């Protein structure tokens, strides 16, 4: 299969699934202002997903549209990392997940902005400004929760402990990505790991939270082996287009 298609779709799936998760908070946020803030983040992320899906559809060149890719693929065909499909839980868990992803995305997009593929570079360039703000938003909440009350601290620490095992997958490389790195199109994410870990460790320390000792990492998203949560997310996201396949709105 076309490496560029597979890679673009991976990036798209990461954004799409995360955006769908974040949008679950819309109307349910802890208070009005924060509800809007997170919805803004969701919208930015949907925007990136749309650009990537459109490009993936174009690269594939088999007549599938961005919507076809989003709504008519099954769980096993989704290639997002497991971290982004994890349920929102309480607000601390949503924020910890977001901080992990935001810091990774900023490092990733900064490198991708130099990609030899102009479209990928363009999408990354646009995303950098948005993600820079996302990092600021999620980081400030990590500090607030970690260094807040005993209750908020404990919840944030629980979230870190629970989600840590899904962070290793962000830095996994395979043949598809290695080939694209050689062509100057993608990024060797394994080289971003050290920087990411330092940023996250610094943030957690500042928030009086601890990085888990355990080094066990769960992965499989790239191969379509997901946690049980993705199926529910997709069935909700896809229900309308699957019921009314040619509906327009």
């Amino acid at each position, binding site marked *: 299969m076309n490496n560029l298609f597979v890679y673009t779709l991976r990036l798209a799936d990461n954004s799409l699934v995360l955006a769908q998760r974040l949008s679950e908070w819309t109307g349910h946020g802890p*208070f009005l*202002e924060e*509800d809007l*803030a997170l919805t*803004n983040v969701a919208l930015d992320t949907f925007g990136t997903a749309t650009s990537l899906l459109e490009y993936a559809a174009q690269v594939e060149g088999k007549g599938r549209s961005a919507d076809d890719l989003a709504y008519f693929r099954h769980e096993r065909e989704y290639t997002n990392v497991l971290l982004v499909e994890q349920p929102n839980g309480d607000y601390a868990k949503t924020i910890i997940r977001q901080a992990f992803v935001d810091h990774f995305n900023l490092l990733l997009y900064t490198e991708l902005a130099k990609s030899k593929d102009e479209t990928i570079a363009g999408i990354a360039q646009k995303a950098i400004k948005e993600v820079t*703000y996302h990092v600021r938003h999620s980081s400030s909440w990590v500090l*607030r929760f970690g260094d807040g009350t005993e209750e908020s601290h404990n919840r944030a620490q629980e979230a870190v402990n629970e989600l840590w095992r899904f962070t290793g997958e962000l830095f996994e490389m395979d043949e598809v990505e290695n080939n694209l790195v050689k062509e100057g199109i993608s990024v060797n994410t394994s080289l971003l790991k050290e920087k990411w870990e330092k940023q996250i460790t610094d943030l957690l320390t500042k928030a009086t939270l601890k990085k888990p000792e355990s080094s066990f990492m769960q992965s499989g998203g790239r191969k379509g082996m997901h946690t049980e949560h993705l199926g529910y997310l997709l069935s909700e996201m896809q229900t309308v287009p699957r019921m009314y396949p040619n509906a327009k709105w």
Partner: protein
Amino acid sequence: MSDSQGPLWEVFVQKKAGQPFVHCGSLHAFDKEMALQNARDLYTRRNEGMALWVVPSSAITASSPEDMGSFFEPANDKVYRHPTFYQIPDAIGHM
């Protein structure tokens, strides 16, 4: 939604450099940084501005409705305070 939303802040937006900061509304936040972030998300998502001020509402001293008469009405009959009696040369244009 819980009612512990933090204190109230007033938001001022500047459209362009050099222009005055204009009050555009208020919001809830727990500290300065959060107030600034919330202001960005609530009031500048459609390109409304280039710069923001947030001020704790409690820091604002306001005139009260009872003062309206003594504060503002004496100005009503003093038209000479308006600079409308001068001829403005055309070259100056709109002032």
